[in-house]
């Protein structure tokens, strides 16, 4: 069997390790700032630990009108200011490190994505790539800052608990015993309705399904004139959504009521125990103030969930980002192509596998320079894959492709893309304007070649009819399938090299335009080798040579006239009626 995945990174463990290594690299890229977060967070925790004791002492001194009261107050003010300022610094640094880390991940992932063979990223849908690069990169980018805050998040509550014991062991004991006891007490009051959320989501997705169905049937609805009925039908589950929603809020309210009651009750319990200490003269009023604040701080152990959660989410997200980062790049050599080469194309034992299944196998093919070869076959016979390996949109899993005798894998990237051009059935245009879209390529084409190429592709007329002509923004020009194909052809013509691969690129053209494009290919566009993948009979008939593919293998390489005698070949063109066919023209 063929393995289409890289040998490493296949087991769960190694995937996790590789993602963690990625996080380490990200952290190292902002090492100084991350250390800053660590220091500031620790210092802020220390300040917040010192503050209650200082506050209590100041209160005691003030109540006694002690001469040192002023100095104590100054220290308290300084500590408070330090805590607030350090907290602000942590917020600033965390945001900055998050921004840097996210950008670091995004930049590398985008570069890798753009260096990959399109086939290798086809398993990621556009929406998936968008999610990985936006949400997941952000979450992974937040991991270093989260990790740097964990220590401080643990330090403050643990320190506070220790402080409780130091001030008055009874209060510490009251806290330690009270926490689980109260938790248990309140838990018994809680209503168990955790499934309300999932019921709500189910109704919600029912609504979404109905809307999706209706949008899919938009033409039917428009034709039937039943928009109002459809709206009512889609909205039918809304009442149930409201019911489930109200139930959700009530469950949420119960949970909030529980957690909202816990803390004040615990502090009250600690205060009661401290109150006895006060009455006994064991502790002072200031100590009681300190105790109440330490109890609150100690109860904040739950806040470690924040940075800890960020780290856990970050690790999971890093895996998702890493999946894109580990797509193998399409590496290029440094070789030049022989100057003025005719564009002779040679495939030797070429095989391509997708998900372990061969879609192309054992293809040997020699196209002399300057010739036009048509690739025909039923859908799924491997035509587009042949087109993709011929111009190195993908590497073959076995065998070799040579252009003018030079293996494609060794050719320098800029040389390769300058000399090999593509036009597709459904081209994706990029650029700000229609003119930019045609000019876009390894080298931006000058305005006059853009015009010439558009004329050759039969696109000049309709582009000039646009409000701003070639300067019309791409998004504002609605193109039909046929017009889009012509723009794709124009882009290929404007950058024509020694090899051009047309992958069903004229399927939506009317006959007149197709003829025009054909003439242009013969006379106006730079001469070279053409590989034309097509369903139309006329294309095959006009080609110098026809490659007939069947089930991923070459069935025959001959001229159309020779192949036409074969009924199997005629069947490729959906030509069932063989008797009355010939001699029509």
């Amino acid at each position: 069997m063929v393995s289409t995945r890289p040998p490493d990174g296949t087991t769960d463990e190694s995937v996790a390790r590789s993602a963690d290594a990625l996080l380490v690299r990200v952290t190292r890229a902002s090492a100084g700032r991350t250390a800053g977060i660590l220091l500031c967070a620790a210092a802020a925790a220390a300040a917040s630990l010192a503050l209650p004791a200082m506050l209590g002492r100041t209160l005691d001194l003030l109540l006694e009108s002690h001469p040192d009261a002023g100095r104590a107050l100054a220290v308290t003010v300084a500590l408070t200011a330090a805590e607030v300022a350090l907290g602000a610094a942590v917020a600033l640094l965390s945001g900055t490190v998050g921004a840097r880390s996210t950008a670091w991940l995004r930049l590398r992932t985008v570069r890798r994505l753009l260096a990959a063979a399109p086939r290798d990223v086809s398993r990621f849908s556009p929406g998936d790539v968008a999610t990985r690069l936006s949400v997941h990169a952000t979450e992974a980018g937040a991991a270093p800052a989260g990790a740097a805050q964990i220590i401080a998040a643990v330090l403050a509550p643990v320190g506070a608990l220790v402080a409780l014991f130091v001030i008055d062991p009874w209060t510490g004991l009251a806290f330690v015993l009270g926490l689980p006891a109260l938790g248990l007490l309140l838990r018994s009051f809680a209503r168990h309705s955790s499934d309300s959320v999932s019921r709500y989501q189910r109704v919600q997705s029912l609504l979404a399904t109905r809307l999706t169905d209706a949008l899919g049937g938009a033409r039917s609805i428009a034709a039937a004139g039943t928009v109002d009925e459809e709206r009512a039908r889609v909205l039918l589950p809304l009442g149930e959504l409201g019911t489930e929603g109200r139930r959700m809020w009530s469950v949420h309210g119960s949970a909030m009521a529980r957690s909202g009651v816990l803390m004040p009750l615990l502090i009250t319990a600690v205060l009661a125990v401290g109150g006895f200490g006060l009455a006994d003269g064991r502790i002072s009023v200031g100590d009681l103030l300190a105790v109440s604040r330490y109890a609150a701080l100690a109860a904040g152990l739950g806040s470690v969930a924040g940075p800890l959660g960020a780290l856990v989410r970050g690790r999971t997200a890093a895996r998702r980002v890493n999946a894109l980062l580990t797509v193998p790049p399409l590496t290029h050599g440094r070789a030049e192509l022989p100057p003025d080469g005719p564009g002779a194309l040679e495939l030797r034992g070429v095989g391509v596998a997708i998900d372990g299944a061969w879609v192309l196998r054992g293809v040997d093919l020699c196209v002399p320079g300057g010739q036009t070869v048509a690739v025909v076959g039923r859908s799924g016979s491997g035509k587009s894959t042949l087109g993709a390996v011929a111009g190195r949109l993908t590497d073959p899993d076995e065998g070799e492709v040579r252009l003018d005798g030079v293996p494609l894998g060794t050719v320098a990237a800029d040389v390769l893309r300058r000399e090999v051009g593509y036009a597709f059935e459904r081209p994706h245009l990029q650029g700000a304007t229609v003119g930019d879209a045609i000019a876009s390529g390894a080298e931006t084409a000058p305005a006059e070649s853009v015009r010439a190429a558009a004329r050759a592709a039969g696109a000049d007329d309709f582009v000039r009819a646009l409000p701003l002509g070639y300067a019309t923004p791409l998004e504002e020009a609605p193109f039909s399938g046929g017009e889009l194909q012509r723009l794709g052809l124009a882009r290929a013509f404007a950058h024509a090299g020694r090899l051009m691969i047309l992958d069903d690129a004229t399927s939506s053209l009317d006959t007149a335009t197709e003829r025009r494009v054909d003439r242009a290919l013969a006379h106006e566009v730079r001469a070279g080798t053409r590989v034309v993948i097509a369903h139309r009979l006329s294309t095959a008939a006009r080609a110098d040579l026809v490659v007939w593919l069947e089930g991923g293998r070459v069935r025959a390489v001959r001229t159309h006239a020779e192949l036409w005698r074969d009924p199997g070949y005629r069947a490729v063109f959906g030509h069932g009626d063989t008797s009355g066919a010939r001699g029509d023209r």
Partner: protein
Amino acid sequence: MVEEAASTARRPTRPGRRRGTLRGLMPHARPFLWRHRRVLLRLGAWSLMESAQTFLVGICLARALDQGFLVGQPTVGLAWLAVAAVSILLAGPVLRGVFGQLSGLVEPLRDGLVRRAVREALRRAVADPARAAGAERAAVSRLTQQTEIARDSFAGLVLTVRSFLFTAVGALVGMLTLAPELLLVVVPPMLLGLLLFLLTLAPMAAAQGRFLDADEVFTNRAGGLRGQLRDLVACGATGTAADRTGGLIDEAAASTRSLARWTAVRTLALGTAGQLPVLLLLAATPWLRDQGVTTGALMGALAYLVQSLLPALQAMMTAVGAAGSRLVVVLDRFVSAEADGTDTGEPRETESGDQGAFASPVPGTAPAVWCRGLRVSYGAGTRPLVEDFGLSVEAGERIAIVGPSGIGKSTLAHVLSGLHTPDEGSVRLAGEPIAGRSPRELARMRVLLPQEGYVFAGSVRENLAQLEPGAGDDRLSRAVSALRLGPLVDRLGGLGADVDPGALSAGERQALCLGRAYVSPAPLLILDESTCHLDPAAEAHAENVLANRPGTTLFVIAHRLSSALRADRILVLDGTGTAFGTHESLLRDSPLYRDLTGHWNASG
């Protein structure tokens, strides 16, 4: 999300308008709040109990110290603290009551947003069906994700703002009760902190807006990169794409940093509002003692500040800073999506006059489909798909339309159905002009069955009778048996059974839609590749049954060549040039038809 960007990009941008402005939302917010004033009042009533609870906690602590622990009567102190504990426990039911009222405010908001989302999505889809599939994800995201963001953010805002206000009332009344002098010390720094916070609000919202914008633009670009990758690699344009994306990444990072700066500023404001009163209270202790303020009152005031006010303030500031901006942005999207709709939803100016139409021809003699001088394009300024096109088809004829994909066959079908208005020329069905007719009227003149068979969640009967709601079961049964839908309908559980569209195959959906067309009273049936998921034999049977339906004229946009061979006449679309004739005449006259049908002379 990706599609959404595409659709927003297509809309003309309005440079003067910054998104997420509160002012734009006010006209919508006021009537909403007014409609729910009773809920608001009840919410206030429950919240007042929260004030009472806050009030009690401080008072009890002060009394516990002054009358108990500090005067050697710990049992009295304990009793006061027990009162505080009871009041805290009562906060549980109070909070449940608050949430009960909250849902009465939040759920109607969500209902309204869902209704808007569905109405808008359907309106847009029906106005421009060709783009409906592309806008699907945006519509679903608006229906689910964005309404949920609005719901959660709104709830968070109401909860925290309300909590702060009523906690503040309880605490301030408490301090007033303990010793009015406390207020003199505490209120000014609190107001200062709040003022600082309010000052950060606008720049914070702007930073949030910038961040959300940058994130959205980058997300769309990331999805777009994946879609364009093949073309980018093939053109060797990956370098420029990387540079352009790099710029977006930088902007996203810069916006995050700016957001972090404002978060830091907010932290400082929070520190001022929360900690300054505590420090001032400490500093003022000697003076307060001179005024006769007791130690217990002092501790009670500190408890108010630290235990009640500071957490409420922190929760509110966080909620307003984050959820508030998100809510404004999301609501603004709903509002502006509708505003856009009213801009572009105007029907196009129709038809060069067709006065002859009013002289209605004698029924039965008028052609079933007649058009003249048609010029059809996708929009103003674009190249026409057909020009000066005319056609006359007799009732009962069977017509096939063939041509390369993307040449405009479906658009022509839309024009003949009255769904797409031609730039020039007029269309009459059975002698009646179709311009200016309502969708309902049109539905009784013709049936257009698109490729995607639309079956909705409802009964089999409702689905079959969609185009003739009054049709009796005998009529439906005739359609079922004629089109051989019996086994399918039986499997679904009969005419009364509910259909789950997702559980049907594409072919089964198409089969039900063919039954729907059979039941319709319209004399003209247009099948736009609406049998493509049936096997050839089933397709042939369905076409024959529909063609033989009494008084029927059938148009078939051919998916297979066999459909063309069954037709009386064939229309070949070849750019603006068209050919219309029989199979034999087209083989002779139309090179495209020869090409499409595979009739090519090998030696030629």
